[in-house]
């Protein structure tokens, strides 16, 4: 595994959690009930903390070292390597929960592996902490999927539609390029094929419990890991980055 491959792996971890964190933060003051406002922003905070750790490590590996803030605020959409799923707009509460659920299960499996490997102890330390937090996220989103799926006919139909709409972005989670393969070979990353099987079985269990189904014959979309994003990312970044870009050396 080369330095630049390790940088890719770290940027993917950091960008995934950063972009989702920003999206969840958009719910602040808008969630359907107070407890959910607090829950979604708490999850956003956990993800932001994880982002800081991953991006700090990534920044240290660059030939011209960068801080976590520089990476978060001074890169354009084409330099971000997050999954397309995570940049999708919040939609209604069910859309947000569906996006969170599909990612949380994937994230838990990936980070559990990172926490148990001994190839990179810095990443293992961050992951060991993150696993404890992500378990709460999985619990939260899974329970909501069941509550909405098994709720009223309207909530059932709407969360089913959310799952159907977002399904096309799930294939990308398990696609590997040279950097992922190098990470897996070194033992840093899990084997994506077996991770996919495990993910699918866990997702299916919860969807079954919720009376929901996995959509069939979906054309998968990808590109996030190569910096080819949907138009939603640049719009999101514009809002996220405007202040540090206008005042690059400002401190607060």
């Amino acid at each position, binding site marked *: 595994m080369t330095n630049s491959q390790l940088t890719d792996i770290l940027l993917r971890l950091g960008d995934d959690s950063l972009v989702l964190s920003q999206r969840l933060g958009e719910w602040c003051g808008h969630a359907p009930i107070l*407890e959910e406002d607090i829950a979604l922003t708490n999850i956003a905070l956990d993800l932001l903390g994880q982002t800081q750790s991953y991006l700090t490590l990534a920044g240290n590996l660059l030939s011209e070292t960068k801080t976590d803030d520089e990476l978060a605020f001074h890169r354009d959409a084409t330099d971000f390597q997050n999954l397309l799923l995570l940049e999708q707009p919040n939609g209604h509460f069910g859309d947000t929960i569906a996006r969170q659920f599909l990612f949380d299960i994937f994230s838990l499996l990936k980070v559990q592996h990172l926490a148990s490997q001994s190839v990179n102890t810095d990443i*293992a330390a961050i992951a060991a902490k993150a696993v404890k937090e992500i378990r709460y996220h999985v619990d939260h989103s899974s329970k909501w999927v069941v509550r909405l799926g098994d709720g009223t006919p309207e909530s059932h139909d709407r969360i089913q539609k959310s799952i159907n709409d977002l399904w096309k972005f799930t294939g990308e989670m398990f696609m590997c390029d040279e950097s992922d393969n190098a990470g897996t070979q070194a033992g840093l990353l899990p084997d994506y094929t077996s991770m996919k099987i495990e993910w699918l079985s866990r997702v299916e269990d919860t969807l079954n419990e919720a009376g929901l189904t996995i959509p069939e014959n979906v054309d998968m979309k990808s590109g996030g890991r190569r910096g080819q994003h949907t138009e939603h990312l640049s719009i999101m970044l514009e809002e996220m980055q405007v202040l540090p870009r206008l005042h690059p050396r400002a401190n607060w």
Partner: protein
Amino acid sequence: MKMSEDHEKLAASVLKRVRKVMDPELPFLTIEEMGMLRDVIIEDEHCVVIITPTYSGCPATDVISEDCLLAARVIDPRAEVRIAMSPAWTTDWITDETRVKMTTHGIAPPVGQSHDRAFLTGDDRTIPCPSCKTSETKLVSAFGSTACKASFTCLNCLEPFEHFKCI
């Protein structure tokens, strides 16, 4: 390497000050009682205070680092603060005395040990109400006013209260 007597004295007097630093989000508890103060060591002739965050994104970590630095530099002007991620902080490091203190201040302390998965959300657990002490309480949300707490309501005295999550 064994610390010289001078080094030991320096580390001990820095420790004496930093152990009094309070957790800004639980201002009745010190960082030592919270298990966040891991060690004070001597490196390259100066003190290094090692602390660990409770949650990755806990905004109190910055304030705590600043407070530790201020406290330590009174003794050793070259003192540093280092944040250690490993081993990951766990509620198991919160002592029984601290748990009693939490209850007195209206926060239901973590119950049991973090390695037991049943404690994850408190759902299958009895979390007694810190005011009226009955066990008829209900989880409102696994998230609360800070990253480390869940929200509960007492079904007996109807008081809403917070529970320190087991992690």
